[in-house]
């Protein structure tokens, strides 16, 4: 089971049985909040219940609809090109989308996206941004040097396996001969794929994905599921398969049966991080996760951003775009005239807002639950010490990352653990229903139970659990997604209506969102005749 079932809830209840025996009212409720992407505002769009626009009809050069990473990256790109005639309309009260973060007196913490791998050489625009943000601090032999404070500090990952914590995420002990053979074979195959080049001279797999080869030898992998591909290639080792399932759920929130082989392999074969000092395989992370990147992007563009503004209709009139938005604070609607609109919202929303320009397609989304658990002491455990990312082979959650990993040195004080659960097993609509109907207390019990099973040493140390629900968290790169005509049409759209969202890549990654935003911004700028030097 992917998501905790009722039996888990009962089991979780059993942990509190001691308290129950004393009278359940004796145990005070765990502090915390139950929150998430604003589905009421989302449902307003679905139901189309907005007042008709009235008043002045402002005119703007470029309108960005959606203030997630893609939208903010587009805004950043315009600023960098010296272009100021744009606005960003964001539905939520705060920008950032899936890369938003929270904060309490103990630490800042992520609500979703929490790290950015050292980018590949081909991610030129992204590297420019990291340089601007002081994350790249120099150059050595032509390769960028990353700020050591922002690279994930040692220890990066540990795994609870057979009752003890070990370094890394792949079980290192108790493997059968066959497990070892298959592991080595898989590792070798991935190393080969990482360097493979298609007939068109492009790498088989790249990030951003558009730089990947169009050679059918590789694109054909989009037609089968990752699970089927593994079966075909004789990868049957349960240890290997469990690890690969973890990877699929970690990156896509989706089971290997529902992920295309192309996407499944992309995870292992696309990363060729480019950095000096052998840091190419490292990750950048911050207490608030990618919320750090969001706030730095916002710093430059804040004057242009209008939060609490839902875009509910987009249409083309002549060669301009007409955009209707609703201001949730004022309770009124506005009609905008823009030379170009960049639709930077998730595609399933875009299909409702701009039905004349795109369709529903095969876009399927995985729901996620993220909990921030405030503890009054650091987790410990048998074996290797606490890492940034802590995963248990025995749990269906993805474990937890430690918010103070980068910022503190003293071993034992309070911290915040960000706990992740993709609801991947049930169908997305079912999982969403379960997610929305479960109470805060029920979620807290499940989360507490899962954490205490991993770290019994945390008994009595949990001060609060704040639960965050993402109904449509990540795009699932299902088999056939690459060739979905709706997707290709959205990518190729021309002004005045452009699309920019990581959904279009089918890979829910910062690099993809950033790339989509930058490309759309440059296309729009070119359309407006604004000159700039391309970063693509």
């Amino acid at each position, binding site marked *: 089971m992917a998501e905790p079932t009722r039996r888990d809830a009962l089991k979780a209840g059993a942990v509190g049985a001691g308290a129950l025996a004393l009278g359940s009212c004796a145990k005070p409720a765990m502090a915390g909040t139950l929150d998430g992407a604003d589905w009421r505002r989302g449902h307003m769009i679905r139901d189309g219940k907005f007042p008709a626009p009235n008043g002045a009809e402002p005119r703007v050069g470029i309108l960005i609809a959606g203030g997630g990473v893609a939208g903010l990256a587009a805004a950043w790109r315009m600023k960098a090109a010296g272009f100021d005639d744009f606005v960003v309309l964001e539905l939520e009260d705060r920008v950032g989308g899936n890369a938003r973060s929270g904060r309490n007196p103990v630490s800042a913490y992520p609500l979703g996206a929490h790290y950015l791998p050292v980018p590949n050489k081909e991610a030129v625009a992204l590297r420019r941004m990291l340089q601007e943000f002081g994350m790249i601090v120099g150059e050595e032999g032509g390769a960028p040097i990353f700020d050591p404070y922002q690279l994930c500090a*040692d220890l990066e990952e540990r795994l609870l396996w057979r009752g003890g914590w070990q370094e890394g995420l792949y079980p290192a002990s108790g493997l059968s001969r066959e497990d070892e053979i298959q592991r080595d074979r898989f590792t070798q195959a991935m190393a080969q794929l990482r360097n493979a080049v298609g007939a068109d001279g492009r790498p088989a797999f790249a990030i951003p994905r558009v730089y990947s080869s169009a050679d059918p030898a590789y694109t054909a992998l989009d037609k089968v599921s990752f699970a089927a591909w593994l079966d075909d290639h004789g990868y049957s080792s349960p240890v290997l398969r469990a690890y690969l399932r973890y990877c699929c759920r970690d990156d896509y929130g989706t089971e290997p049966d529902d992920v295309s082989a192309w996407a499944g392999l992309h995870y292992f074969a696309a990363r060729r991080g480019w950095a000096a000092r052998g840091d190419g395989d490292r990750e950048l992370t911050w207490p608030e996760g990618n919320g750090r990147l969001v706030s730095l992007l916002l710093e430059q563009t804040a004057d242009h951003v209008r939060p609490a503004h839902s875009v509910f209709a987009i249409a083309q009139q002549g060669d301009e775009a007409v955009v209707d938005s609703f201001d949730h604070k004022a309770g009124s609607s506005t009609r905008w005239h823009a030379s170009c609109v960049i639709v930077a919202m998730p595609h399933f929303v875009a299909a409702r807002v701009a039905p004349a320009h795109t369709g529903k397609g095969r876009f399927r989304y995985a729901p996620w639950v993220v909990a921030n658990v405030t503890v009054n002491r650091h987790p410990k455990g048998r074996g290797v*010490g606490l890492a940034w990312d802590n995963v248990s082979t025995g749990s269906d959650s993805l474990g937890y990352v430690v918010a103070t990993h980068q910022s503190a040195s003293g071993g034992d004080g309070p911290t915040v653990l960000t706990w992740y659960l993709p609801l991947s097993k049930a169908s997305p609509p079912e999982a969403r229903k379960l997610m929305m109907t479960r109470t805060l207390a029920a979620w807290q019990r499940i989360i507490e139970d899962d954490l205490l099973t991993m770290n019994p040493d945390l008994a009595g140390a949990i001060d609060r659990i704040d639960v965050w629900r993402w109904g449509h968290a990540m795009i699932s790169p299902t088999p056939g997604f690459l060739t979905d005509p709706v997707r290709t049409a959205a990518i190729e759209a021309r002004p005045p209506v452009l699309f920019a969202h990581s959904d279009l890549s089918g890979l829910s990654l910062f690099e993809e969102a950033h790339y989509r935003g930058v490309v759309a911004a440059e296309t729009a700028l070119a359309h407006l005749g604004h000159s700039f030097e391309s970063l693509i």
Partner: protein
Amino acid sequence: MGDPVRGDEDGAEPGAPASLAVILLVSVLVVATCGLIYELLAGTLASYLLGDSVTQFSTVIGSYLFAMGIGSYLSRHVRHNEIGVFVRVEILIAALGGWSAAGLFLLFPIVEDFRVALYALVLAIGILVGLEIPLLIRILRHRFAFRDLVSNVLTYDYIGALIASLLFPLVLVPWLGMIRTGFVFGLANVGVAVALLLALRGRQSVGRDLAAALIVLASLIAGLLAADRIQRWSEVAFYAEPVVYARSTPYQRIVITRRGEDLRLYLNGNLQFSTRDEYRYHEALVWPVLGRIANPKQVLILGGGDGLAAREVLRDPRVSKVTLVDLDPEMTHLFRDVPQLAQLNRHSLSSPRMQVINGDAFRWVREASGPYDAILIDFPDPTEFSLGKLYTESFYREVARLLAPAGVMTVQSTSPLIAPRSYWTVASTLEAAGLSARGYHAYVPSFGEWGFTMAAHAPPGDTVILPAGLRFLTQASERAMFDFPPDMARRPTPVNRLDNQALVRSFAEEWGHYDG
């Protein structure tokens, strides 16, 4: 007064099997030995855990004897079935006495007031032991003439006491340890009960008592087998010396022990100093640095919340200000405000020249500004990745930024003998941060051969000026510290970086190897 008829029936009157009388006489010896052992255990444990052994021993012995008096008095209320009551008393003593040491060790870190638990147990065992001899005398009264009876019982009683008082310090504590000793003598008590019950089997129903005795027996055997584990659970049993203070702060476990004049500080179970030889460590940490600086005005100490390094620094009249950054407010509070501890650092933490900052040095150095003429780094060993960050190139770059152009710094850097790779990693890392590094080492008996790494913007020279009155360092011994014999000599090592903490790994390897 007891019921004479029933009393006659219950006593070991003529007609009872001879074996019973033998068992009963032997049991006088056993219960006397056990009784004294529990008393010694409680006294030793109390002085071990609470310190001040004279007070602990006299109060424990006093209350124990007083409780025995209560037991003797209460024995008059036993009106019939003296032997049955005696058996039950034995079972109870076996359970309480047998578990006393283990129980007190386990309770110590948990309970609010340890004394309440201690004296409750001493009183309970004392009362039960006080019941034993009067009951035995009454049971045996038909076996012997009164004159012989009293003489026999008291003789065995005193012999038992002698056995116990010799065995306890010479054999039991050194060989068995306190936890096991408790269990072994609990077994002796319950053994008496079982032997009596078996002898009585034909005469009265003994089923329930036997079951109880067997349960206690089993629990004592289990306790004996698990003694090592119990020892580990109970952290106080972990220390070789009596614990006089123990407290968990949000950051660490602080334990202070004292044996005689020797006071020791442990953080998370790791020895930080022993008053016997800490002057060696702190003189070596401080004076090679201050002695190489023409005019050390501003001194920065990172770690060192015990104020001992600060004590050395403040002896230097040239120093106008000491800034000390320690994570744990509880540490600096202890060593500033507890007279016994503040005496050790000569009140350095309340000196007007001292500024104490409670914060994470890892963060603090990034925001602080210098320059400091001397920087002394005295962090816990890099046993964990979180502590290892304080030994990284990035960290030393910030420290280098805070160091005055002609300033000198030093880093306590583990043992160059036990962990040479780890030790020299610190030098390589300081060099990677752009500093010139020089290793030196000193012998500190409670640590063994200990290493420090001096660093500065230019290579630190040999010339050093030491103040008068040091106990360890002289010009000659200072010079000798920089000499490394081959077994500790410099070797190539990696640089310790935030994202690749070579030091934490080598430290675990080298010390793990050493610990066996």
